[in-house]
Every structure is written in structure tokens, then in C-alpha cells.
């Protein structure tokens, strides 16, 4: 039965995340925007708090390890881990996107482990904070084209290559590295490997200075004859044309709605604050009367809100599908494409609507407008999402629609 509201049983988690965003993130938001590369020590406390909650048998957290595909609903519709995580990250990013990306043990690598690791690996890597390393200087959106290699030598994989743009790459305790077993075999030969920091041969060589999300560390990493145990390869080492690369890519079906949720969160922050500032100027939003009979500012707020709701509902739809075992690649990409582009547009427009106040560091609006840009880039750019959606709608292979 069609009911598109946030379910009551998830409101507790949403509220918890909101409290964290409001009372922990917001007060230190500007501080770590200015002090790029400083470690936000406040997060250790937050990590302890989250661990305490799980250990105490508290409600299911909003963590990335809840991003698991359900085998299918028995006993009715499920609103499970995917929706919880999406809603949780929405709230945290309402607080601060950079800090949300720096929560210990909530890295994208953790999502990959949750999605493709076998039972033994899940146990072994429990409690690990794992970053994700895909992009290389010569391979961004074309991730099938990576050059980092993995070769089996006895009981160890030997990794060689260079990774860039690794979110939480220096702070995490492990990095999930994408590498190819054989460059001639294309995407099927690409596998992911868990490499703990401290492993000889893996080195953080640089931290990037960025437009936004400065509270989050973005690292360049080199791998030189870096040796890891054989069973640190996630999933199967067989080069099966169907399941190899696809298995790794499957992570994205779960994480893209989360990034959509991040955009929804930061856009809501900007919308709410802009609305409050405009209200002081006598501009109040009323959902009645023709749009064109309103002031341009009020009409724009309403248009942005409509677009924002679209991004939010598409995110919930994609998460709902994942929770109920329905394939959602297309919908995951739709949600990210819509939420991220309107998230960016909304935050930028909010700066404009608030004038110099919006542009000034006196408010956080300008920061949100910088932070939002990355959400339309990482986990697949806008253009990659459009390609995925277009291929799906048009029934095209990647060799046809390139």
C-alpha cells in the first residue's frame, strides 16, 4: 500500500543522528573547515558513543555496515538497514558532511566489506575502519581501467600502484584497494583487497587541500610491493565474467542512495537556514495561491523544496528496494543524480538568496555550498549516473552507449 512517509520505527534512529549532528557536528563545523587536516578529536567520543549504543543492544545504528542486501521480504514489507543508513546519514550531513565522512569505522570500505565479504572475513574485519581506494591518476570514472595490480605470491597478494582521492585514507586503519589480477582480462579481473595501515609498502604520500568537506581527509596512497594475506581479497578470486567486477560494483547500488541522502541532508540545512533568514525579512513560505503571484524569493524557496523532496523520495525508494531485495541499480543512480544535482543547486542558490550574508563565513551557508559539490562527483559523477540510467532505459551495453 502506497505510503511514502518515514516509518515511525526509524524515527528514533533519525532523532539520535540529528542530536549528534546538532550538538556535536554543528558547533565544530567551521573550526574544522578552517583547520583542514586537523584530526577532529571530538569524533573519538562519538565513536565511543556509537560503540556503546551497539554494545548495549541499543537500536540498530545508522552505520554503513547495515548496508546489506536483503534476501527478500518474508512477512511483508521491510524498512531495514539501507533505509536506516540513508536517513541517518541525511541527518549527520545536515550537521556537517566532512565530519560525517570522518566518523571512525563508517568508511566506504566498511560498506564494501558489508556487501561482498564472506562470513569469515566479516568476523575478521569487524570493528575495522576501512577507507575505499578506487580512483587513480589515470582512471577516475572509468574504474575498469585501473592499473594497480595484484599478483599472488605463495600465500600473499602483492599489490603495486597508486591511488588518489581516498576519503579517510589516512585516518582509517585499513584501505580497501581495487586492483586487477590481469589487465588484459578487463573488468572481470578487478578485485578488492583489505590492506591494513602499517603494512610495509603502503604509504600515504599526500593529503589534498579542497574546495569543501575539509574536515575529511582525502589521501593519495602508493602501494609498492605491498604484501597482504591471501584471504584479504574480498569475495571470490575467480575471474568470472559475470560476478567479478559486478560484485565490486554492487557496492554502489547500496552506497549511492546514501550519498543521495548526504546531499538531501546538506541541502536541507541550507534550505532551513535560508528560510529562517528570509522570514526575518518578511518572506514567508505559504503553500497556497499561484506560484507566479508570489515574490520571486518565496517562489524559489518552494521550487527548491519540491526538487529537494524529489531527491529525498528517490533516495528512500532506492533504499526501500534494497531492503526488500529488489534490484535497484537504476533507481540508486536516479536517486544520486537527482539528489546530488539539486543539492548542489539548492545550496548555491541559498548563498545567492541570502546575499553577502550567505557568502560570508559569518554563516555556514557558503560552506554548505562548497561541501555539496563533492556529492555530485564521488561515488560516480552526475554524468556516470546519467550513463547508467540511460543504458538501463535504452537497453544499451556500455560498448554501445559509451
Amino acid at each position, binding site marked *: 500500500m502506497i505510503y511514502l512517509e518515514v516509518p515511525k520505527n526509524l524515527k528514533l534512529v533519525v532523532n539520535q543522528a540529528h542530536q549528534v549532528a546538532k550538538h556535536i557536528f554543528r558547533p565544530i563545523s567551521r573550526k574544522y573547515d578552517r583547520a583542514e587536516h586537523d584530526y577532529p578529536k571530538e569524533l573519538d567520543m562519538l565513536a565511543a558513543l556509537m560503540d556503546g549504543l551497539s554494545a548495549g543492544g541499543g537500536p540498530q545504528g545508522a552505520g554503513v555496515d547495515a548496508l546489506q542486501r536483503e534476501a527478500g521480504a518474508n512477512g511483508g514489507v521491510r524498512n531495514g538497514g539501507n533505509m536506516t543508513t540513508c536517513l541517518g546519514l541525511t541527518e549527520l550531513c545536515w550537521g556537517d558532511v566532512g565530519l560525517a565522512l570522518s566518523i571512525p569505522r563508517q568508511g566506504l570500505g566498511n560498506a564494501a566489506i558489508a556487501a561482498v565479504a564472506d562470513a569469515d572475513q566479516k568476523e575478521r574485519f569487524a570493528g575495522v575502519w576501512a577507507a575505499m581506494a578506487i580512483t587513480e591518476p589515470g582512471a577516475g570514472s572509468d574504474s575498469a581501467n585501473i592499473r594497480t595490480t595484484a599478483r599472488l605470491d605463495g600465500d600473499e597478494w602483492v599489490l603495486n600502484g597508486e591511488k588518489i582521492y581516498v576519503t579517510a585514507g589516512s585516518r582509517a586503519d585499513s584501505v580497501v584497494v581495487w586492483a586487477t589480477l590481469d589487465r588484459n582480462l578487463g573488468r572481470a579481473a578487478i578485485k578488492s583487497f583489505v590492506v591494513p595501515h602499517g603494512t610495509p609498502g603502503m604509504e600515504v604520500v599526500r593529503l589534498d587541500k579542497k574546495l569543501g568537506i575539509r574536515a575529511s581527509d582525502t589521501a593519495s596512497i602508493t602501494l609498492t610491493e605491498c604484501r597482504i594475506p591471501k584471504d584479504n581479497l574480498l569475495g571470490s578470486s575467480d575471474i568470472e565474467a559475470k560476478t567479478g567486477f559486478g560484485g565490486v560494483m554492487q557496492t554502489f547500488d547500496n552506497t549511492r542512495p546514501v550519498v543521495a541522502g548526504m546531499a538531501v541532508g546538506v541541502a536541507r540545512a541550507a534550505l532551513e537556514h535560508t528560510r529562517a533568514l528570509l522570514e526575518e525579512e518578511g518572506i514567508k513560505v505559504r503553500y497556497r495561491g*499561484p506560484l507566479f503571484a508570489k515574490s520571486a524569493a518565496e517562489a524559489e524557496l518552494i521550487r527548491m523544496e519540491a526538487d529537494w523532496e524529489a531527491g529525498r523520495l528517490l533516495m528512500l525508494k532506492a533504499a526501500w528496494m534494497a531492503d526488500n531485495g529488489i534490484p535497484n541499480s537504476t533507481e540508486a543512480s536516479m536517486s544520486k543524480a537527482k539528489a546530488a544535482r539539486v543539492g548542489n543547486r539548492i545550496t548555491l542558490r541559498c548563498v545567492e538568496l541570502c546575499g553577502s550574508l550567505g557568502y560570508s563565513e559569518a554563516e555556514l551557508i557558503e560552506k554548505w555550498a562548497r561541501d555539496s559539490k563533492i556529492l555530485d562527483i564521488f561515488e560516480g559523477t552526475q554524468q556516470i549516473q546519467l550513463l547508467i*540510467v540511460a543504458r538501463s532505459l535504452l537497453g544499451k551495453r556500455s560498448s554501445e552507449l559509451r
Partner: protein
Amino acid sequence: MGSSLRVLNRIADSPLVERLGLEDRAQKLVYEGAKRAAETAARAAKRFSSKRTDGRPRSSQKFDLSLTEEQQLMRDTLRRFADDVMQPAAREADDRSSTPDGFLDAFGELGAFAMSVPEVLGGAAERVSAVSQMLIVEDLARGDMGLAYAALSPLSFVNALVHWGSDEQQSRLLPSLLEGESNAATVAVVEPHPLFDPGALRTAAKRRGSDYELSGEKSMVALADRAHYFLVAAEVPKVGPRFFLVERDAEGVETLDEPAMGLRSASLGRLKLDKVRVGSEALLGGEAALKAEGKAAYDDGMNRARIAWGAMALGTSQALLDYVIPYCNERLAFGEPISHRQAVAFMVADIGIELESMRMLVYRAAGRIDAGLRCRREAYLARTLCSEKAMEIGTNGVQLLGGAGFIKDHPVELWYRQLRSIGVMDGNLLL
């Protein structure tokens, strides 16, 4: 129980149902209807309690995008009807600016009226659902928005009677509408001036003793050439906007053809009301409607109108997407299908994304009605998004076909004209 079974039986007997190969579905509909009627009777027999339930489904309170079995059945039926009856008739009806004879009867045979009226009022619906109504709108608009507008206008009239009519009005008007007089009624809210606001009507209903005197002009009224009844929105001074039931042959009622950019196949007309005198029984909901519940009903009606036009945008946009996909895959340029070019493919992707965006907002607003939640904000936002994105989809649809999109050999230019109506129409349909 008897009346609902009679209605269901009529659906099963319909020659159209047979022609469309819908027997299986019709039978299932009848089966489900009968089963429900039996269950209702059994429940009634078990407890003689007169305690009234509010008829609202108990929501699972979980986010859910799945349809009920009944909605899925209705959907399958209407989609066949849209494909096999409406799409082939759309072009000629548009050319003639007139709803074809027999089309409304054919639609009436499908049972949408019965499924919209609760059993207690002689229909076959266990409960009336805004989502179900919205799905009907979406599926019909997939066939053709103009014909859908024609078919949905009497249904909107029926919906208004069911939601807000007094007992007397329901028993006076519903039976004939349910018995198949499917072209008998329409709804007139929209007025012909820029920045029209359904909350600030120029059409007035002045009190004259216990009567009302209606004056004003209504625009884009579907079936204006043939409707016996008009549900007219008019401002009662010092009270606010209310609905009135106006008969065609009342003195001072005049209709004129009003062909427009699109929706032409709905037999569009201007309704002129010149000091039309109606009795107090013409006020929808009776005297009680003068109080707060009349305002609530009108506001509810506006929300339902916005959701309905949003659903129109969904149906036609879906038809457009379904059409441009094979076209772009088959049309060759520079030695390959044009869909192999990102400039083309991304446009198709954006149609898909914005269509799904609109769908989420429209479904959500309708779902809130069924859950008993307020939906003014949600309906307003749905209208805002659909007004913009529906036209974007319409113009991009023509663009994707290029010159072929501009000529009448393809239906895309028709959809372009019809999708422009979403930003214009604020009223005239009700879920």
C-alpha cells in the same frame, strides 16, 4: 451487497471487456468484489455493533511503494484500455476537438465508477482510496490526456458527491451516474484570467433568501457540450469558496466551445453563468457546508485537484518516454542509432529521472490522504514540480524526434501540447 454485485456483474458482461481480452481480470475483480461483499456481510452479521469505523485503512506505518492486489488489477485493466482504445482514438479526437461518441460509455463499462463509490452508496468499493483514484488518472493519461480528462470529469463529479455530498444529494444523483450515464456530469473550477487562484474565485454565489444566485465564467470545462450537471466552484460572500451543483437547463447557463492548445478531445468549453438561480439543495454538502467543514471540503478538493493533474503529467510523460526510447534506438544518424550519443541518451535519462521524481511527489501526496494525513504542502509541491518538469519532458520529447516530433505523424507534438496544461489547470478534476 446486492447493488455492488449488480455493478460488478455489469462489468463482467461488458462486450468491451471481452473484446479487450480482459475476462480473466474482470472475473478476478468480480471474484474479489464478491468475496469482500460476503466478508462484509459476515462481519455485519457477527457483530451488531453500530460503532462506526472511519473507513480508513490501518496503515502499516512503513514506507511502502507496493500496490494492493485490487489496485494492480485495476491498473492492468486500465492499461489495456489506454493502449487498445485510447491511443488509437487520440489523434482523431484531437483533430475534431470532441470526445468521440461511445468512448465515455466504453470507459464506464470498465468499472472505475463502481470502484470509486463505496458499497453503502451503491458502488463496489470496500473503501475509497485516493491512491487508487490517482492510479486511474495516471493510467488513463498514458492513453491520452485529453480523452482521460473527458473520462475523469464525470468521475471527479462522482468523487465530490461521495466525499462531500449530503445524503440527499448522494441518493438523488449517484444512482444514475453509477448506472452508466457516464457523460452526465463535469467539474468547473478554473476561470479565464491570468494568475488564476482557486482560492480567490471571481465567480460568486450570492444569497437570495434561501436560494443562491451564481454569476461568473468557468474555463476549460470538459464535456461542456453535453454534461447535465456542473459542479461549480463559486465564492459565497463572507463565507468563502464552495461547490454548487448546477443543472445544464437552469436559466442563465450557457456553454461555448473553447478549443485550446491541448486537451481538445475533452470537448472543452467555457461555462457562462448569468444570475443562475439555484436552491439551497444545490450547495454541495447542504447547509453544513457553510461552516468550517465546507471550507475543509473545498481545501481538500484543491489538494485532490493538484494530485490529479500531477497524475495526468505522470501518465502522459510515461507514454512519451515509452515512445522516444524505441525511436532513439531505431533512428540512425552518422551511421549509428542516435541513442548511442550522450547528448541524446542523457536527455532520455533526464526524462526518466524527472518522471520518477514527479511520481514520488504525486504518490506521496495521495498516500497521505489515504493515511489520513494533511497534504496541502505535499500537493502544492507536487504541482510545483509537475508544472515545470512535465513541460520540460514534453519539449524534450519533441526535440528528441527533431522534425519528426514537430509533425503530426507522431504523437509527440500532441503530448507537448497536452503537457503544457499541467501548469495551467488548477482545479476541474478531483480524486
